[in-house]
Each structure stands twice: as structure tokens, then as C-alpha cells.
């Protein structure tokens, strides 16, 4: 297992380089002069030149690339053009909110989706199955902003159980949870819908396997049969979906943060776009890339934990 883990971690390094290079090229592909885009048409030649020097745009491309990689590796993502603070600082300030939201959504999605998915598979074609499939279909067909607004109208405005305007930043843990509840639920339903689907199909496949019959022939009772024998074997596709969906989740969390007016990467991105804050955007892209690579690596590690055969491939 340790050798497998090290191999996976080493594999993440080239992936990271490819991503960084792609971001570098993408940003350089922005048509026209970046300095002019940032400063606008009215800028003087002197200030344009000054900005080009600060951004390193007057250097040859390979030098720009090397210093870009060097900066990223030393953790220097540059300075935000609008606030003047370092990009790292800007991101660290709000990152905990987004992580909190994303993790809460995953927990909700898995905690609801996994048992429901298992139940639909075990009671195939029964009413639980139809109900579960319906819930999953509804969860998948509502765009995050529609369900977000619906949740706000019902639970915040009508029932008043949760705050409408969400500061997210309260120090009081209860208050913080109340702030978190609706947006996390909003994202969690989508997660749950995916988890129900993949759990159902994965478990249906596994429950038809020969070794499940072997376990029944040993006298294993239904509860243990499903949890001990079937679930672990059905887990790989479920982990894959949770891992893959993580990327989508970050995208959806941007939307959700804006709807619920929560601090987080979502609002930071929106602000950076409005201010044409190009170093901040580049920094955010790098952070996202690192997050996605980290999640993929974790997913691979989870495969190794779940399925003994993975390690030996």
C-alpha cells in the first residue's frame, strides 16, 4: 500500500506541470496586450510600460515561463492588481468557507445518497426503488441556482429557519452552521442525486455476483451481506463519481456562494472578473488545478484502500 501511495503521489507531479503549463499558455493567449487590457484604453505609455515590467511581460517567453513555474513552486502567486494584497493571502482568506461548503455538501450527499442508493438496489423495483430514483432525477434536473432560490424562499423567507443574507463568517459555531445549512444542502442534493444513481447501479451489479451467492450459502444474513460483502466491492465506481463530481462541485459552489451571498472563492472570482484582476484569476486557476489534482490523487489512494487488486496492477 505504501509503495502504491508513493507511486500515485509521484504521478501527480507531471500532471501538475501539464496543468501549470496549460494555465500559462492560456493566460498568454489572451488577445492583445495584457497591460492594456488591465489598465484600459486611456492608460499612458509610461504606466503601461511600468505594468509590463511588474508583470514580467517585457521578458522573453521562456524566461516568463521559468519565473512563473519558479514562483508557483515557491508558493508565490503574485499580487492582486485590485487590492495589492498577495494572491495567496486573498485566497487563504476565503478558501476555508469554500472548503467548508464543499465538504459539507459531500458529507450530505454521501450520507443521504449512499443508504438511499443501497436501498434502491436491495429493494429493486419496490416502492423504495421508485422513490429513490425519482428523488435522484429531481436532484439532477434542478440547476443549482433554481434549487438555491427555492430553498431560500421556503426555508429562509417563508419559514425563517435560516438567515437570508449569509455572512458565513460568524464566530459562533451554531450561527455558522445555520449559515452553512442551506447552501450546503443546495449543493448536497446534486451530490446525493449522483451518488444514488451510481450506488444503485453499482450495487445491482455486485449483488448479482457469484461471491454474493457464496456468502449467502455460508449463512451470511442480509444486513452483513450488503454491508460487508457487497458494498465494499461496489465502492470503486462510487468513489470515482464523488471524486469526479468534486470538480463540478467547486463550479457549482461558485454559483451557490453568489446566490446565498456567502464569502468564498465564488465571490472572489466574480470580483476578479469585474476588476479584470488578471493575476488573481491566474492564481485562482492554479489553486483550482491543485485542488482537482489533489482530489484525483486522493481518489486513486482510496481505490487502493478499498480494492486489494488495485495495488498489484
Amino acid at each position: 500500500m505504501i509503495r502504491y501511495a508513493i507511486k500515485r503521489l509521484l504521478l501527480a507531479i507531471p500532471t501538475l506541470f501539464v496543468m501549470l503549463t496549460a494555465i500559462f499558455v492560456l493566460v498568454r493567449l489572451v488577445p492583445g496586450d495584457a497591460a492594456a487590457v488591465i489598465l484600459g484604453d486611456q492608460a499612458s505609455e509610461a504606466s503601461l510600460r511600468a505594468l509590463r515590467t511588474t508583470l514580467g511581460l517585457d521578458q522573453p517567453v521562456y524566461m516568463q515561463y521559468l519565473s512563473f513555474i519558479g514562483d508557483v513552486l515557491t508558493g508565490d502567486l503574485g499580487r492582486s492588481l485590485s487590492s495589492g494584497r498577495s494572491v495567496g493571502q486573498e485566497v487563504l482568506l476565503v478558501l476555508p468557507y469554500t472548503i467548508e461548503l464543499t465538504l459539507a455538501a459531500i458529507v450530505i450527499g454521501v450520507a443521504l445518497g449512499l443508504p438511499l442508493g443501497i436501498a434502491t438496489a436491495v429493494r429493486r423495483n419496490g416502492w423504495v426503488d421508485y422513490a429513490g430514483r425519482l428523488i435522484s432525477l429531481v436532484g439532477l434536473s434542478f440547476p443549482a441556482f433554481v434549487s438555491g432560490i427555492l430553498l431560500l424562499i421556503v426555508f429562509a423567507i417563508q419559514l425563517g429557519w435560516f438567515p437570508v443574507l449569509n455572512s458565513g463568517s460568524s464566530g459562533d459555531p451554531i450561527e455558522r452552521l445555520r449559515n452553512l445549512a442551506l447552501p450546503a444542502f443546495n449543493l448536497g442534493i446534486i451530490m446525493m442525486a449522483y451518488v444514488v444513481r451510481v450506488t444503485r447501479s453499482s450495487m445491482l451489479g455486485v449483488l448479482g455476483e457469484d461471491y454474493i451467492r457464496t456468502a449467502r450459502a455460508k449463512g451470511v444474513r442480509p444486513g452483513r451481506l450488503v454491508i460487508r460483502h457487497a458494498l465494499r466491492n461496489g465502492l470503486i465506481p462510487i468513489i470515482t463519481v464523488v471524486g469526479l463530481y468534486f470538480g463540478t462541485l467547486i463550479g457549482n459552489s461558485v454559483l451557490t456562494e453568489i446566490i446565498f451571498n456567502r464569502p468564498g472563492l465564488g465571490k472572489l472570482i466574480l470580483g476578479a472578473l469585474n476588476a479584470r484582476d488578471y493575476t488573481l484569476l491566474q492564481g485562482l486557476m492554479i489553486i483550482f488545478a491543485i485542488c482537482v489534482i489533489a482530489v484525483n490523487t486522493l481518489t486513486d489512494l482510496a481505490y487502493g484502500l478499498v480494492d486489494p487488486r488495485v495495488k498489484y496492477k
Partner: protein
Amino acid sequence: MQQNQETALDIRGLRTEFKVGGRWYPAVRDLSLDVAENETLAIVGESGSGKSVTALSILRLLPQAGARIGAGEVLFEGRDLTKLSEREMSSVRGNSIAMIFQEPMTSLNPTMTVGEQIAEAITIHRGASQADAMAEALRLLKEVKIPSADSRLHDYPHQFSGGMRQRVMIAMALACRPKVLLADEPTTALDVTIQAQVLMQLDELKEAYGMSVVFITHNLGVVAQIADRVAVMYAGEVVELATVDALFANPAHPYTVALLRTMPRADRATESLEPIPGSVPPVTAMPEGCAYASRCPLKQPSCEDKRPELLPFDGPGHQVRCPVRLEQTRG
């Protein structure tokens, strides 16, 4: 030899049905068989003749939807297994009746070590601690002659060859010292030398554990090697029942005769093996009369009218479901 022994398992009038296109069709019909203590009963027949369905019916391991036991009893230790609750049934499974399956490659759980899988039945049925159960699992692995068992105990199934996995399956089945072992083509997927080793081992273990064995196979060579009695199945029915010696010396049913001709033998060239023309009728299209009639060289017009009954043939305990043959021997 079985007359003076107690009956271990007694199947009476078993009928197992599958739902196909909204209707129930029998895959096993009017099947009565008994197995004496310490006896090995072989069930032979071509693919699709209902051998596996019979074994699965005994332990009620058929798919929960679309399959049912339509009639009959399975008497074991004074109880009718078909009447037990699912809970009572699971305390019989793997405990007093165990089963080995055909596919060693897919019948073991890929995410549990073989030790855990062997120990599981012991913890379930004997209430043993995990440590005790694992110690017993190790003893069983040694008993089925897995080389360096101590280190293999914590290995996963994919680290074993087919023959070794089948030994693991046998160890699993023996874990609670069952009275009856149902072995559904346990050696079919293995190559010939490994097959012989596993068979020999099963035979030794049967003696050591004092079990009754129901051995399912379509290979008559295997039957000759290990069985005391043989039931020949065709299209869900027993068509002939005899001791091994009687079956090979004096096969009664035309289907048995045809099966014997498909069997490779040392005294005959392989080219003279004759496959039986035609195939087993599907469960959805069973003929009215004798199910074998369409393939039978002895067929009479009357064969297609009425389903023949299983009736005594010449030797003791020898029964056959063929009026034409019965007629011949009497006349």
C-alpha cells in the same frame, strides 16, 4: 450399501419454477432423491438439465425474484427446509449443509482475505471470536493442503490459482463440519491434473468429516471415480437412478446410454466419441410426453403422449423413466 444407513437428506416431489414472460415454468419437475449418511450421490446430465437448480433449491439460494419452489419437500434433520423462515434457513446454510460452486474465479469475494472468508462461517454459526475463527481457518487451509498456509491466510483470492481457490472454497464449506456437502461441478473449471487432485482430496475429506456429498457433474468419468450412486437428470427430471456399478454395467435409459458414449475412455479412440444430437428443450417449451423423445433412437409413437414415470428396473434401487426399455427387459 445405503439401505442400512440413515437418510441424511430427502427430497420429495421437488418442483422449482422460473418466471419467464409473466408465466411460471418448471426447471425441475417432480424430483425425488435421497442421500444416505456418508454417501456420495452424483447428479449427472447435460448443461441445462437442472442440476444446479436442484442444488440451489435445497439451500434456497435461487434468485429472490422470478424463482420459486412450486411444490415438494426437502427433509433434513426432521424439518422441511422449504417451510423454514429466511432466518432459520440462514442458520442451516454453511452450517449443517454447505455448498461449493463451479466457478472458483468468481465465487470468492475479491475484497476479503481467504482467511476472513473461511473464518466468517465459524464466527456466524459457532459464535467464535475472530482470533479463534482465524486459527481454525488456518487449520482448514492446511487440511486442504494449501502450501505455506500460514502466509497465505492473509492473501486475497486473486493471488491464488484456480485450483488453489477451489481448495479455499472447500475449506470454507468444511468450516462448520456440515452433514451434507453440495458440490456443484467443483472441478469443471480446472484442468485435468488439478481436477484429479481436488477430487481425491474431496473424497478423503468426506471420509474424515463423515459427510454426505451431492456431487454435480456432467462428466461421467468423475462419477466413476467418486460416487456411490448416480442420478441422471434430463430436462429437470431424474431419468435414471442407480448405483455406480449398475449404471456403468447396465445403463437403462437411452439418454444414459448416449451420455456414456460421449465419455472419453481409455479403451476407445477419442474420435469415436459421439455427441448426442439435438439439445435439451428449454424450460418454456417442454413437450407433453417424454422430454427426451425428440432425440431418442428408441422412440415409439406413444412416447410423445404421456410423461413416463420413474419405475423400478432390474437391480435393487435401480429406477428408470422409460416405458420402452422397461417393456424390453420384461418382454
